[in-house]
């Protein structure tokens, strides 16, 4: 049964009284969960803010775990010691290359996961861990941190510090549609994920300067204000309509550049915003 048809079936049954709802619950338990995808949360050197963001989908997280994904690995969340085989690895944090275990685990993640997603600024671009100089108890020698893309091939980026619950949710849903959906859903998911895959190919460095070098210097900025809205540390203001960054405040998370409609913009996806948002709402019910 395709995702949409199961969803629409549920919709039909929504209005009637309790009995029908009960029947539906029974059906859900009977239905095998084999077509779920397997997801793991791999924790490198990050602050757990990304994991909190994932959890901040609240009921939505339960829906995702109930219908679309099994959490097969996750610090404190799944009682699994070693990185298992999985469809999607959500990696939070950068890799401390002075720590053997971290390096080993990120390599294993690449081997064991079909899709590796860098969740958040640290995994994608280094973010705040770029500013680390070591010297912290009880491992003062841990001073060198690299975004995961410097050590392994990464498929998808979810930039931002913290990445938003909605963005993590959207990527989870699209990953499910990509792996388990109908041909049309696969096409939609491919289009949706494409810019995030291109971001992963583009590189492992980000900061406000990207807006200067890739947008303003390239004659593309039109002063919409997206970058200032996206910046988590309020480092961006607009002077006479153009972004100005207080570069000492910039934590190198990549949110401003990736939020900018002139960094990347997909005419295959964005003009369909109404139907895609409806689809997301429906599958999260």
């Amino acid at each position, binding site marked *: 049964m395709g995702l949409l048809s199961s969803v629409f079936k549920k919709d039909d049954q929504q209005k009637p009284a309790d009995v029908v709802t009960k029947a539906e619950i029974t059906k859900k338990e009977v239905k095998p969960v084999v077509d779920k995808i397997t997801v793991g949360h791999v924790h490198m050197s990050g602050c757990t803010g990304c994991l909190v*963001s994932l959890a901040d989908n609240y009921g939505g997280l339960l829906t995702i775990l109930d219908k679309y994904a099994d959490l097969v690995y996750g610090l404190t969340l799944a009682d699994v010691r070693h990185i298992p085989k999985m469809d999607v690895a959500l990696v939070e944090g950068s890799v401390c290359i002075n720590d053997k275990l971290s390096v080993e685990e990120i390599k294993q993640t690449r081997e064991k996961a079909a899709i590796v997603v860098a969740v958040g600024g640290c995994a994608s671009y280094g973010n705040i861990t770029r500013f680390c100089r070591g010297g912290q108890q009880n491992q003062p020698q841990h001073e060198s941190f690299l975004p995961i893309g410097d050590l392994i091939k990464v498929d998808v980026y*979810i*930039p*931002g510090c*913290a*990445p*938003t*619950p*909605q*963005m993590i949710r*959207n990527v989870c849903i699209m990953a499910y549609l990509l792996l388990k959906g109908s041909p049309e859903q696969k096409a939609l998911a491919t289009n*949706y994920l*494409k*810019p*995030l895959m*291109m971001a992963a190919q583009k590189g492992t460095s980000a900061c406000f300067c990207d807006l200067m070098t*890739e947008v303003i210097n*390239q*004659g*593309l*900025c*039109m*002063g*919409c*204000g*997206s*970058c*200032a*809205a*996206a*910046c*988590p540390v309020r480092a*961006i203001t*607009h002077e*006479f*309509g*153009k*972004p100005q960054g207080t570069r000492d405040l910039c934590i190198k*998370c*990549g*949110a*401003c550049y*990736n*939020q900018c*409609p*002139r*960094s*990347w*913009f*997909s*005419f295959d*996806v*964005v*003009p369909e*915003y*109404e139907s*895609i*948002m409806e689809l997301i709402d429906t599958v999260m019910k």
Partner: protein
Amino acid sequence: MGAELGKYKSCVSARSTDKAILAGAQDGGIVTTLFAYALAEGIIDGAIVAGPGDLPWKPRPMIATTYEELMAARGTKYNISPNVSFIKEATRSYGLDKVGIVGTPCQMQSVRKGQLYPIGLRDVGDKIALAIGIFCMENFPYQSILQLAEDHAAMSLESVKKMEIGKGKFTFMSERGAVVPLPLKVTHKYEQPGCHVCLDYVANLADVSCGSVGSPDGWSTVFVRSKKGDDIWAKSVAAGCFETKAIDSVKPGLELVTKLANEKIGKNQKTVDERKTFGVGKGLRIPYI
């Protein structure tokens, strides 16, 4: 082309029935009236508009939560107001659960990208209750407006009462009654460069979009695009906020809108294509994928 006007459910020529709004409106007072209606009905808690800035004719994004604040932001300024920069702040410091925003076509693209790809816009997407787009051929940096007014129209910006682009002219009107129409040929070079890769004329991604083109003086052409927009527009018309006329009953009508849309998109598509071979064996970056 066929897609130059975007998807829309209906299109009319309309004018506000609020005389006070019309007195300071650019054309039909559509944006101010629709926001005022939405505020009064609780459809939005506030709207991000281009309010008065610290210099004459310099806009500043402002969150209007009252009729008076909306009134202060009436009229087109023809220079950049980064309205999207307030979209997260509106839901945070201002605590709005239902946000209205007005913007140019590119700003509507930003809003929709932000809803589908909320990289740095946590919990913002579902709070956008009404996005009104305005037709836009191009925008100008503030210093361009200053130069056009002072050097070309020989008016100080303080004394400019209204600016208007229409019928092939950028017209400056002064408080004392002087009217100086500048041919667009003169103003083109002052345009913001970022506008030259824009492929949207009539704010295809807004809930409701409007502009003067296609309608008689003092009226606006209105495209109703999304389900949300359709619902709010229908209610506001039923509440008597607008006088409307069928778009095919007015001159110059959709034909002119289509013509100008194709002109803009054609010209800018050419600019985009030329970016690929801008240098010698090297091109400029193209944002569209």
